[in-house]
């Protein structure tokens, strides 16, 4: 069933420092425009400002669901990149706190794996726009990581 070799793709992406191919595989990530930047040993994800992701037309502000989807996807990729998982992790639950409006501008996200067991991983995700010290949202998620 698994037609895609994520192991190879992840290795290639890391070697070339080019994550476009990996990101391009996931239609939803392409739809909202997720990008991935490598800063030293850190991985930072970027969601470029786009009219198509706006929810609140007055501010205007990015749809909360898109911010959540971006953060969930960041966590999934983070696990793929760092935790040596050869397949896509499966979401178990996701909880997000919205701290500030996500304005019509680029959004960034970074992840922290607090615990990876054999079956389940716990990931915290922070999203910000102006400065990392003032997050627009924090989230945590559990993923199933033991095979498809």
């Amino acid at each position, binding site marked *: 069933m698994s037609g895609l070799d994520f192991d190879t793709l992840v290795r290639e992406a890391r070697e070339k420092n080019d994550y476009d191919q990996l990101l391009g595989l996931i*239609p*939803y990530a392409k739809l909202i425009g997720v990008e991935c930047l490598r800063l030293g040993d850190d991985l930072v994800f970027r969601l470029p400002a786009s009219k*198509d992701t706006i*929810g609140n*037309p007055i501010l205007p502000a990015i749809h*909360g*669901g898109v911010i*959540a989807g971006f953060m969930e996807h960041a966590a999934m990729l983070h696990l793929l990149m760092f935790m040596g998982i050869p397949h896509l992790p499966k979401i178990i639950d996701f*909880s997000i706190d919205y701290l500030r409006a996500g304005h019509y501008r680029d959004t960034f996200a970074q992840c922290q794996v607090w615990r990876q067991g054999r079956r389940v991983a716990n990931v915290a995700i922070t999203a910000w726009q102006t400065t990392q010290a003032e997050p627009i949202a924090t989230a945590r998620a559990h993923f199933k990581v033991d095979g498809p």
Partner: protein
Amino acid sequence: MSDSVILERAQRFLSALRHCQVLGIAVEAADSHGLTLRLPYSSSIIGNPDTGVIHGGAITTLMDTTCGISTVCALPDFEICPTLDLRIDYMHPAEPHKDVYGFAECYRVTPNIIFTRGFAYQDDPQQPIAHVVGTFMRMGKAAQGGQGLKRDIQGGAA
């Protein structure tokens, strides 16, 4: 407030949300008890290309929107209610090539906060693919930056 007014407000509210138009989300039903939205299956929202399963992010958007708009079922006037928090528990993955429905209701309304809960399902509401709770903040009528939007959404009923 009559159910037809609630339905109309829910439809106008949804039509103002650009990203929901991109996903093709539509109002399925709305009355004083709650709101149901429909997210059509599409290849552009796939999260796993091997299986064709929809990305959790699209389901989160559906449920954030459903919970957010369900506030019109409980409030006499339209109010902008930003999401404070949202939690989704996945019971099982969505089946590919099938639409997803989201239902939400407000189970407690205070002067400042609205507590909502709901679930996402495909064929059978008794077998949800996800359970959701969301908390929303009431900004109060004085803080409404969007008088124009309020007029648009309430329509002639305002």
